[in-house]
């Protein structure tokens, strides 16, 4: 507490803030309606088809509008389409585009722009890493693999403002799937003229509430209000700047110093102090996500279900979330995150039981003379480090000797996909759709089923669920699949991540939600008093 507390006592944040405000008045001119957001890292691209990161998605969602979109509370609402119909067999979706949709250069947004975009996304030459998001569409997977021409994908413009999409099999969550940048329209007239350079500031035309004004790599991305946006009259911000705040301490320091208006992460040790001193800035809520451990079931020792069960039983989730992480993470014994709507998992919570765990290990042939030695891999980062050190300590209590190995995100997942691991951290984010998570346990999913788990019963139930048109029947089958899969412990679900945000009280229209989406078109900044 020493220095920091002392300084805080002498210079409360209000005073610091006032002095900053004074400096702003005296010095540099900052536009009152510009919002400064700490966006957690540097975007690697702003091409909706080449993006890969959530932080890129956030900027893209302010630049473009897909057929469906998020509202201020993260609910899915009509976007570039005003309405849509679905055929009785759930396969044919027909979207009606809004008549007043315009690109930022004034050109109308047409069904052709969507057809063009979907074809470009699925063209193998584009090398879109998230192209599989659209594999629900008939012909999409084949076209992306180069098997059929992209013109044969079942997407067509019925007229300038009506789009028809035919799916390969029923997919009731398709409207939700369309909110990703992989479903955005592209300004055909610009991309055809400029090629890959169309994404540069000055070239890009977008159909969302904002347009790309400036991009200083590792410095900031600046977007400005799009005068041609159909609801431009309701957009109160003139501009937004996204800062690549990869280091959450630096982000926190800059927020505390009044240099940022919103940050999405900060050191968790600060929560108590923030609760006391800046309660009107602090927002904590669970994110739609699951963090878990995955076992490589193809090799010893984790080809033995008893060993997997033993390690799962040794982990006390409440200890991890309550004592180690300490910022209201939601412990989750289920693989589908607890806040997924309409889905009540049938997996029963089992309390940590070191005795039973030790017994199972002994049965599998491990004891003090012949201890189980394993390597646990995790992604570099302060919270990850704490969690996995704690897990290693829990395993030590049942006689397991754990070596830890950390690597950067990309290297980590490359190793996982190649099966070059024993047990490792993994996480899955994003959708309000249990299938999105449970697919990871299917043997046909490919390399995101990192542990190569294959169970006939789980596969069978999942396949049946995917063919079910009626939602309740589908969910019931998914529940059974989850129980069947988890009974073999291919993964150990741990917890749902917490969204920790600091939002300046001057910012209006910001509502916490489990998807953690906050479209800038609904945000505003009150002038400083």
């Amino acid at each position, binding site marked *: 507490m020493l*220095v*920091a507390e002392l*300084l*805080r006592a*002498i*210079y409360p944040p209000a*005073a*610091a*803030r006032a*002095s900053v405000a004074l400096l702003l008045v005296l*010095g*540099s001119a900052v536009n009152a309606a510009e919002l400064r957001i700490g966006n957690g890292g*540097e975007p*690697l*691209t*702003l*091409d909706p088809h*080449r993006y*890969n990161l959530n932080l890129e998605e956030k900027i893209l969602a302010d630049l473009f509008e897909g057929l469906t979109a998020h509202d201020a509370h993260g609910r899915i609402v009509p976007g570039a389409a005003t309405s849509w119909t679905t055929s009785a067999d759930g396969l044919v979706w027909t979207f009606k585009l809004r008549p007043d949709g315009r690109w930022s250069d004034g050109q109308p947004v047409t069904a052709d722009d969507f057809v063009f975009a979907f074809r470009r996304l699925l063209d*193998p*030459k584009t*090398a*879109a*890493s*998230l*192209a*599989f998001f659209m594999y629900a569409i008939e012909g999409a997977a084949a076209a*992306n*693999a*180069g098997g059929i021409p992209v013109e044969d994908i079942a997407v067509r413009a019925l007229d300038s403002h009506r789009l028809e999409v035919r799916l390969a099999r029923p997919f009731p969550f398709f409207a939700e799937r369309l909110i990703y940048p992989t479903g955005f329209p592209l300004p055909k007239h610009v991309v055809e003229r400029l090629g890959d350079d169309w*994404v*540069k500031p000055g070239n890009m035309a977008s159909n969302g509430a904002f347009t790309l004004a400036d*991009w*200083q*790599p*590792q*410095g900031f991305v600046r977007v400005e209000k799009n005068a041609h946006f159909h609801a431009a009259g309701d957009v109160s911000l003139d501009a937004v700047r996204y*800062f*690549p705040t*990869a*280091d959450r*301490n*630096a*982000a926190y*320091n*800059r927020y*505390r*110093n*009044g*240099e940022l208006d919103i940050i999405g992460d900060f050191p968790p040790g600060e929560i108590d102090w923030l609760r006391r001193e800046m309660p009107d800035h602090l927002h904590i809520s669970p994110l739609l996500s699951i963090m878990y451990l995955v076992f490589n079931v193809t090799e010893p020792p984790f080809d033995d279900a008893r060993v997997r069960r033993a390690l799962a039983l040794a982990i006390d989730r409440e200890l991890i979330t309550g004592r180690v992480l300490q910022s209201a993470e939601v412990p989750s014994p289920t693989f589908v995150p607890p806040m997924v709507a309409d889905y009540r998992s049938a997996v029963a919570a089992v309390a940590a039981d070191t005795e039973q765990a030790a017994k199972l290990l002994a049965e599998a042939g491990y004891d003090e003379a012949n201890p189980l030695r394993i390597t646990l891999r995790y992604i570099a980062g302060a919270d990850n480090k704490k969690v996995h050190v704690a897990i290693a300590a829990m395993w030590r209590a049942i006689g397991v000797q754990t070596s830890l190995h950390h690597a*950067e*995100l*990309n*290297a980590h*997942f*490359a190793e996982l*996909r190649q099966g070059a691991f024993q047990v490792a951290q993994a996480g899955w984010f994003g959708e309000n759709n249990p299938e999105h998570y449970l697919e990871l346990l299917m043997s046909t999913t*490919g*390399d*995101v089923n990192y542990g190569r788990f294959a169970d006939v019963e789980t596969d069978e139930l999942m396949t049946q669920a995917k063919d079910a048109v009626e939602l309740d029947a589908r969910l019931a089958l998914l529940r059974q699949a989850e129980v069947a899969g988890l009974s073999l412990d291919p993964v150990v679900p741990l917890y749902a991540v917490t969204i920790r945000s600091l939002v300046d009280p001057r910012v209006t229209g910001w509502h916490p939600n489990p998807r953690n989406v906050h479209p800038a078109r609904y945000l505003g900044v009150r002038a400083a008093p």
Partner: protein
Amino acid sequence: MGRYLLRRLAFALITLFAVVTVTFFLARAAPGGPFDGERRLPPEVEANLRAAYDLDKPVVHQYARYLGMLGRGDLGPSFRHKDFSVNELIGRGLPISVTIGGLALALAVVVGVTAGTFAATARDRARDRLLVTAATLGLALPPIIVAPLLVLVFAVGLGWFPAGGYDTARSYVLPVIALSLPYAAAFTRLSRGSVAEVLGRPHVLTARSKGMPTWRIVHRHVLPSALIPVVSFLGPAAAALLAGSMVIEEVFSLPGLGRYFVQGALNRDYTLVTGTVIVYAALVLTFNLLADLCYARLDPRIRHA
């Protein structure tokens, strides 16, 4: 003198070539590839990407092509920052790094030489002891300790300076101080030694005995010779400053070369890593050449060689 510099220049170019070669092959010998991501790309897609970046050809072919591009001043496309070329990235990062590094070095020289001279003129008195101890302590305070403390006290605590970014001149104050501290200390020790040595030379003693004021003696007779070791340390100091500048750019979220280099290395962005190393090496070598030039002007033995 002309020949001396020419030889130096040739040597610098050979060194640069060696650096390019080592970095190029090191980056490609490493396990893993630049397209590793959270999800694996379909084989066709990865093949397309490899072809687009020329990675499907033999390494020797890639190397020859890279050298050809280098000859035209083109560092290639970035593998990770898909919307930018390495030239564009370095073009934006370089001014920031050079500003921070240059200011830090200048501050270190000014503070160091002043403090060193001040100490030497009062050899073994309290002022000297204090400065020497302070300098030794300064050497023991690397940026990884000083930078976070400066942020805690002067940015978050007092709110005098920004905690990051590069929007205003004030943004540069804390990073420059944190980066320059150990070098200011090193220059203090160095110049104290050399000033003291020159002060003991006969012509200086004569000037002293004639009653010339100390500051004039120092200015006229001492500093020109005493600065030689300081100048010759500038080159190595500039090279050493790099490591510190990476830490500083990380702490203060500055989009400089150091950040591109570290991120590029961690993400196997071959072209970005090779590009930043080349620019860094070229900078340091140029700086060494300039230091050599100053050195040659100051030291008569080299001037006539």
